[in-house]
């Protein structure tokens, strides 16, 4: 019998560390695995019985752990309360897993479990009998495109780097997952680090490189640790190092921890950062494939892109291309978060609709609220409104809405999310993260942010919308890199689909989502107030008047709209407008 505890960062945060420790304390020897993607079910414990049967237990808290231990000891128990529901099990089965194929299945800290899943077979077969050109052709057939956001054909980048002769070339894995709302790269490294190593080896063989670098966010300590363990095991297992598999090809990988800058997701900025500089983009050409890290041809691929590579080489490019749509092949991993019931990672073939993901796999909106919009592609992307939920997920269809595929972050919003506030949130982000090189991006985002701050503070003016549009155009035109060129997208898409909300804020000084505090007024419904004075006790500015057991009222002149009275009132007597 094997006990396996899901221990990705999310699992640990949900309590998996305690669950693991409890099994150890009870005399068991549990194994670990990475994120299976169902974050909303964490902590998850899988039991593989000697009979061959398998049971999955979910939301395992302290009591749940006790019940499972009793169950394993054959004592009377209530383990059934923690058994995964049919619907949740179905959601996991319904996905088509390529990049996540081993995540939540194997122990990421044991190379043998990766090998048992045909790991490192693709690279061995390639080194033994295929040419770099054949490898690039296979990836071309697969139709794999960059999963980091831009969607550029992977084979084209590899081929360009291959064509440029040099004494030294580099393969760089971009694990600087900066989109606030995406976490698939973290989950893949934590759950299946050897797939990244093998993907980088295949890319290295294809372009003629002997050195790989993983540029990973310092905020992902567990991913870094798991990757370090994997690299060590690969080296001692003879998968990394000199003269691999009895040939004269050598390849090794090192890790570089990023220091926190969103712009470093851009290739030339990432290279500058690797070289110890400020991460500021430069003009292209020369492209990294011509002149990259230390002036040598370099190929940069995103984590999810590389995770697909071993699968493609094992199963053939055609098998990958058989999934998806005309212009977008294969599968895509999405990080579902926000106001959604089943938050986590899902992998679906391209061509599924947004509604399939949000309502099918995602289980719909939390607390039965109405689906308002979904933000795709993070700060560079845009908001897609609920009425476009039938949009097909492929690069082209998403771009037509004004949003982008991006790295696959899907932040779902309900009726209580103010779209002007959301646009302001993204502008705060891009304004802070602008490297400062281009004037339009550096100053333009600041001016846009100031306008949005004014609007959400109830000080919006006629002409603000037009000014936002004008600035958006100027920033798009006047910025060197994608950070600046896409920075206005959240404003443009919310203006396109939710223009009324802007007008409500500016003209009527109303926030219909009831989220912009300076625009809210609080009052107490006389017929529902019992005069218990709970609200008065919670009010930090003593702005609620009334004698005990008599109807209270809110003094609007002192109210700071903190909302504490609303939360404290047991009778729902406080009205927010």
């Amino acid at each position, binding site marked *: 019998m094997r006990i396996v505890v899901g221990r990705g960062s999310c699992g640990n*945060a949900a309590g998996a560390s305690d669950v693991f420790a409890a099994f150890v304390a009870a005399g068991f020897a549990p194994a670990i695995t990475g994120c299976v993607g169902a*974050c909303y079910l964490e902590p998850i414990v899988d039991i593989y019985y000697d009979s061959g049967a398998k049971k999955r237990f979910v939301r395992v808290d302290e009591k749940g752990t006790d019940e499972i231990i009793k169950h394993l000891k054959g004592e009377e128990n209530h383990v059934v309360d923690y058994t995964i529901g049919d619907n949740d099990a179905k959601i996991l089965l319904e996905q088509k897993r390529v990049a996540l194929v081993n995540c939540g299945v194997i122990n990421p800290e044991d190379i043998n479990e990766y090998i048992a899943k045909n790991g490192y077979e693709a690279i061995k077969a390639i080194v033994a009998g295929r040419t770099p050109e054949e490898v690039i052709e296979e990836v071309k057939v697969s139709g794999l495109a960059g999963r980091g956001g831009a969607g550029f054909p992977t084979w084209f980048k590899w081929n360009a780097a291959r064509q440029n002769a040099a004494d030294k070339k580099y393969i760089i894995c971009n694990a600087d997952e900066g989109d606030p*709302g*995406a976490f698939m790269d973290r989950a893949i490294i934590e759950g299946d680090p050897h797939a990244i190593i093998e993907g980088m080896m295949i890319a290295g063989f294809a372009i003629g490189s002997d050195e790989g670098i993983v540029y990973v966010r310092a905020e992902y300590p567990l991913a870094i640790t798991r990757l370090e363990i994997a690299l060590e095991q690969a080296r001692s297992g003879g998968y990394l190092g000199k003269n691999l598999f009895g040939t004269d090809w050598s390849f090794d990988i090192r890790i570089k921890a990023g220091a*926190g*800058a969103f712009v470093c997701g851009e290739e030339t900025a990432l290279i500058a950062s690797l070289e110890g500089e400020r991460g500021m983009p430069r003009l292209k050409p020369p492209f990294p494939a011509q002149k990259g890290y230390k002036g040598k041809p370099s190929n940069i691929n995103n984590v999810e892109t590389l995770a697909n590579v071993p699968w493609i080489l094992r199963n053939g490019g055609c098998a990958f291309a058989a999934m998806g749509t005309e212009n977008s092949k294969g599968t895509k991993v999405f990080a579902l978060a926000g106001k959604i019931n089943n938050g986590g990672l899902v992998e679906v073939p391209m061509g599924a609709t947004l509604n399939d993901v949000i309502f099918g796999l995602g289980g719909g909106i939390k607390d039965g609220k109405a689906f308002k919009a979904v933000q795709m592609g993070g700060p560079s992307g845009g908001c897609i409104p609920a009425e476009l939920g039938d949009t097909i997920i492929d690069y082209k269809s998403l771009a037509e809405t004004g949003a982008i595929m991006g790295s696959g972050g899907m932040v779902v919003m309900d009726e209580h999310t103010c779209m002007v506030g959301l646009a302001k949130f993204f502008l705060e982000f891009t304004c802070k993260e602008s*490297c400062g090189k281009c004037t339009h991006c550096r100053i333009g985002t600041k001016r846009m942010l100031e306008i949005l701050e004014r609007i959400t503070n109830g000080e919006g003016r006629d002409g603000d919308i037009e000014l936002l549009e004008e600035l958006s155009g100027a920033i798009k035109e006047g910025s060197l890199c994608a950070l600046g060129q896409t920075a206005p997208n959240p404003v443009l898409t919310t203006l396109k689909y939710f223009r009324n909300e802007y007008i409500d804020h500016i003209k009527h000084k109303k926030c219909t989502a009831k989220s912009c505090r300076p625009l809210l007024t609080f009052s107490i419904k006389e017929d529902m107030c019992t005069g218990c004075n709970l609200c008065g006790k919670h009010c930090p500015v003593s702005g609620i008047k009334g004698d005990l057991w008599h109807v209270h009222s809110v003094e609007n002149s002192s109210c700071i709209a903190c909302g504490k009275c609303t939360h404290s009132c047991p009778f729902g007597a406080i009205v927010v407008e």
Partner: protein
Amino acid sequence: MDIDLKALDGVFAVAGRDEGALIAVLQGAQDLYGYLPMEVLERIADEMGLAVAKVLGVTTFYAQFRTKPVGKNLILLCQGTACHVNDSAMVEEVISEHLGIAEGDITDDGLFSYNNVACLGCCSLAPAMMIGDKVYGNLDREKIEKILDDIREVALCE
């Protein structure tokens, strides 16, 4: 506070002194001192043959680097999109109120500081925060206060 600059030798031994190692050196130095005081930056510039302005330029570019000291427990508040729509503003309000500090300040007992950071990548647990290497998710007022009180209690016992 006297800063033992000699300890930097260990950082250089691991990261090297090439220009490309600057970020790794700064990361090592910050691990060592908890922040990057001016004396340390000057010493790094000196050792690596770089202008102090260059070292300071790189230091201030990246969010990870701090030039001011922090409390023993640095709380990183996630400001990702998912946390934003799940009311991360409340988390900051509670922490700030409970500890009586603003972002970047240190509590009087030297135990806590907090910083707003970009996404921690635990979006399905929003709103989330990280203390040390540990991520805490699905935060609400009671949970946050308990986490802070527990850490304080443990620290007082030590």
